């Protein structure tokens, strides 16, 4: 594995500090020239290829596999089955912590969902392994699968999302509804979605005695290392995971999945390095997905258009063998100032792989239903949807009564509406047409996502040549961690970014925590901030305690670091370079560690969320029902913006996903077999360039002194929320047809002409 070399990137022009500058991706040249090494690009000497055979039934048992036929195929080295596999150190079904999800690693011949791995063929070539897997010709004993939101008896899960209670009550919802002058009672459905990262899950595993070298995309390397350690009975330091680049993760690479463990087992079985890469259709099962939901919203409002109650119930599904519940109804906790709010969940178990975190889990599904219902209520109150939202603006977090650490949503509404031209929107639907006679509609939605922080550590170094290093096992999923975190490092070290060696993407570096929850820049950034401050403090100690230094006697607090030098804060004519300080002290480098973590006191006191407002224009063919989004404006307030270019891209990506949620994306499951019928990118429709209109992103200035030292809230997921509802509401405004099943399909718009 070659070291990441960023020196081929063009030098950056910088004005003032690094944070806040729209630097281009520092790894961009590597990526566009094909030199960025993704997991599957690794080919250690002697490597074999592993291919999974997966179940074509959703429930039952494998009763036979023609292992002999597979082994006879030229090039096949071995076939791993429940009867022939290396032993694991612990039962993989034991949940050793809340972030362990059950996986199929050939524990038994039971089939719990379609596309579940049932064997692994290991061969000298990919082609031989692929044919070997086909020759296994499994025979099954098939049981009727559980499919869909009404598959069986429903139950209330103990928790939803990550440890959230399944139900929340605030105020008297029934009284609020009873007193309302206007009521909405509507049911919305969202369909299953699959992450479909461009890079499929892949692993290259190389055992050398009891040490294990792993190339695999990961959003949480240190957590993954701990899981491998417990499964294989290894000390964590014997395991080295490299994940310098991910071709997208979206939550599906947050936890090691069954197929990745199977790659490790296969390599152990054959005693040679092994590569295992999922085929696209194999991504529809063992690596997580977004569960379907059916959400009922009951909303009451008084004659002035003020909410009297908000009741949000979400039905979802989990697998038959593990628990993850899409916390869709929780989307109603934070946005609108209803005096009474109730959110509840229930679920049924179905024969799928366990649903998992997928970009804005709960927020995305909940948002499209909530924003649709709010839009319906605004119309019922004969109010403009923006005016209705402002009438119900939450000055404190509705469900808790806590003040917000910061909330520039009003500015988002104002700036987004102004840029979009919202003021010209006619109130009733089906009022606007373009020159070609197409129906035109305008819709909006409010975006929100919590400002989270996890735990991370970083190590900072200042060297005698005046350069610096920052080490942190951070994850670049394409969001730009190589760039944004290096910008933070440069500022904290007081160095030009090109004088900082920024190391990331490897499990032997300090733990950067999880790249999820839109919290990676905030969490890793806080650790970098604290490590940088600590190493500068050490350097300052060297100088201020040395009477030969012009900084002698300045004291730590009286020194600032900038451009590779320390200056007296009160007299910037007195300064000294890092190189001079270290040379005189006769040491080659100083180093320090720092951590980033949430502040419990602030969490207790404040509600912390990013916010935004999304406005969409759609055109709809009045006879043919074809919809096209023609314009979107999103205004987002997410605290401090480290790199406006990367942030804009993240928000673009989120808004496009929102568009996809409203109009395109859906896994189609055969109701009889539980098989996914469109498990490929030809038929699982995500937007293509021609579906994506001009997007306009405004980042609204917001200073948050409470969320973390740098004031960062995160932008990875918020773009989906609000956007999906804005598109759906625009379709209603264009057509007068309220579709409550997403994605909206052509047939639903043919009902009227």
């Amino acid at each position, binding site marked *: 594995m070659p070291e990441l070399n960023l020196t081929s990137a063009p030098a950056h022009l910088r004005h003032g500090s690094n944070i806040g500058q729209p630097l281009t991706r520092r790894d961009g040249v590597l990526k566009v020239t094909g030199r960025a090494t993704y997991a599957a690009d690794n080919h250690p000497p002697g490597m074999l290829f592993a291919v999974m055979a997966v179940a074509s039934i959703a429930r039952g048992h494998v009763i036979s596999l023609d292992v002999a036929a597979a082994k006879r195929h030229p090039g096949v080295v071995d076939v791993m089955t429940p009867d022939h596999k290396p032993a694991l150190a612990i039962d993989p079904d034991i949940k050793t912590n809340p972030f362990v999800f059950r996986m199929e690693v050939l524990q038994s011949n039971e089939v719990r969902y379609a596309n579940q791995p049932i064997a692994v063929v290991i061969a000298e070539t990919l082609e031989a392994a692929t044919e070997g897997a*086909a020759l296994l010709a499994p025979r099954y004993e098939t049981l009727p699968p559980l499919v869909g939101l009404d598959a069986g008896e429903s139950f209330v899960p103990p928790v939803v999302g990550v440890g959230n209670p399944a139900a929340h009550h605030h105020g008297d919802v029934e009284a609020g509804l009873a007193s309302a002058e206007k009521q909405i009672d509507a049911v919305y459905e969202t369909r299953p979605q699959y992450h479909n990262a461009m890079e499929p899950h892949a692993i290259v595993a190389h055992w050398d005695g009891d040490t294990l070298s792993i190339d695999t995309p990961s959003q949480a390397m240190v957590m993954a290392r701990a899981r491998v350690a417990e499964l294989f009975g290894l000390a964590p330091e014997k395991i080295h995971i490299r994940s310098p680049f991910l071709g997208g993760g979206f939550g599906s690479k947050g936890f090691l999945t069954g197929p990745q463990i199977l790659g490790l087992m296969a390599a152990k079985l054959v005693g040679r390095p092994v590569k295992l890469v999922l085929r696209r259709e194999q991504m529809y099962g063992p690596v997580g997905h977004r569960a379907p939901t059916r959400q009922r919203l009951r909303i009451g409002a008084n004659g002035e258009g003020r909410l009297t109650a908000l009741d949000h119930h979400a039905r979802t599904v989990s697998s038959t063998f593990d628990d993850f519940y899409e916390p869709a109804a929780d989307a109603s906790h934070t946005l609108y100032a209803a005096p009474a709010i109730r959110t509840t969940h229930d679920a049924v178990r179905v024969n799928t792989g366990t649903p998992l975190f997928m970009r804005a889990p709960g927020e995305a599904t909940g948002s499209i239903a909530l924003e649709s219902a709010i839009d319906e209520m605004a119309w019922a109150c004969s109010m403009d949807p923006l005016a209705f939202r402002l009438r119900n603006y939450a000055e404190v977090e509705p469900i808790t009564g806590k003040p917000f650490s910061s909330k520039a949503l009003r500015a988002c509404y104002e700036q987004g509406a102004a840029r979009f031209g919202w003021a010209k929107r006619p109130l009733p639907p089906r009022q606007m047409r373009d*020159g070609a006679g*197409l129906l035109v509609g305008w819709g909006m939605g409010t975006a929100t996502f919590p400002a989270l922080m996890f735990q991370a550590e970083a190590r900072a170094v200042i060297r005698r040549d005046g350069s610096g290093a920052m080490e942190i096992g951070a994850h670049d999923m394409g969001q730009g961690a190589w760039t944004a975190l290096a910008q933070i490092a440069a500022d904290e070290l007081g160095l030009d970014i090109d004088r900082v060696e920024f190391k990331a993407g490897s499990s032997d570096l300090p733990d950067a925590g999880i790249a999820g929850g839109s919290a990676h820049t905030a969490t890793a950034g806080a650790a970098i901030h604290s490590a940088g401050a600590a190493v500068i403090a050490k350097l300052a100690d060297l100088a201020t305690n040395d009477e030969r230094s012009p900084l002698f006697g300045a004291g730590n607090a009286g020194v600032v670091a900038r451009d590779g030098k320390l200056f007296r804060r009160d007299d910037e004519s007195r300064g000294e370079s890092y190189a001079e300080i270290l040379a005189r002290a006769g040491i080659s480098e100083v180093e320090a560690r720092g951590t980033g973590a949430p502040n419990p006191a602030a969490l207790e006191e404040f509600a912390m969320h990013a916010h935004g407002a999304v406005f969409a224009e759609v*055109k709809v063919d*009045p*006879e043919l029902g*074809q919809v096209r989004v023609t314009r979107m404006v999103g205004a987002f307030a997410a605290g401090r913006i480290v790199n406006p270019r990367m942030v804009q891209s993240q928000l673009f990506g989120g808004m496009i996903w929102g568009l996809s949620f409203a109009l395109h994306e859906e896994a189609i499951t*055969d109701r009889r077999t539980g098989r996914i019928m469109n498990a490929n990118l030809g038929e699982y429709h995500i937007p*293509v360039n021609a579906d994506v209109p001009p997007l306009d992103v405004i980042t609204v200035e917001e200073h948050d002194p409470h969320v973390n030292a740098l004031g960062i809230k995160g932008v990875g997921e918020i773009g989906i929320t609000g956007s999906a509802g804005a598109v759906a509401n625009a379709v209603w405004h264009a057509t007068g047809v309220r579709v409550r099943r997403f994605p909206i399909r*052509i047939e639903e718009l043919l009902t009227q002409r």
Partner: protein
Amino acid sequence: MKPFDYVRPGTVAEAIAAAAQPGAVYLAAGTNLLDLMKGGVSRPNRLVDVTHLDGLDRIERLADGSLRVGALVSNADLAHDSEFARSYPAVAEALLSGASAQLRNAATVGGNLLQRTRCTYFYDTASRCNKREAGRGCNARDGENRSHAVLGWSESCIATHPSDFCVPLVALDAVVEIEGRTGRREIALDELHRLPGNTPERDTALEPDDLIIALRLPPAARSFAAHARYLKVRERTSYAFAVVSAAAALRIENGKIAEARLALGGVAAKPWRARAAEDVLRSVAPTADAFRDAAWRALADAKPSGDNAYKIELARRILVRALTLAAAGTPARLPALPASPFASTSGAVHA
């Protein structure tokens, strides 16, 4: 992947000889076949690569005014041939509305005619499919079938033919030139694709070693150039098969329709020529009423094969729109979004 022989004949005669053995299939660009092989849907013993055969990559005007297109001409080259696009604008528009730019650069005219259905049960080897395996049954019939056929289907098979290209071609009476064991012959494109009946495993009238050599558009095909459109409704703006599509071509003389050509895509196992609807339009003025009458006639025999009744109404509306657009006149340039309802700023019906 299953091992297979790969042969690359130099002449048509060698190709036909090489394809004579059981389990042999012709390979052109492979944009469909290779996917089928990767998915285990098609498991040939031998690929006969015809892409190096001489003389099959030409677009020629024949003395009688017809146009002959070699089977190896790529979709992109054909669509971007300015003389072709001027003479047969609906065909060019259909070509450019299909697949993606990369696929169109690779895909060939001959291969396009022979692409298989996109019925997901055909692709899913764990499902029963009479087209993939004769007599096994059809899981689509009671399955997820909102995109399936509403015309010409049978209890054995409700799959549709996915081609855009074939829809205006069948409307324009295209002819297919075939070389086979018994020599050269030709058949109307309308006779090439079969309705399923009890033998859905046979997509076409071709014998196993028949090779499509060329496609011919007869002299009359160009007489519709001034009033010809292809219109396609799909679930995203590009890189999606038609939910329903239509080709409409009119020859208008003295304010009346002298001759109309109509065909539908995405509704049946073959590109669906709507001859009865054409008759409705003969010698009448191109009015909205006439177009509606024709559309109703075209779908008179339609019936849903599943959750797809909407496709019948959608097909009627697309026919009316395609006729309206064709009557308004072929645009001087191909639209930036070919065949899309969003392509045009003229001719749309104001409600």
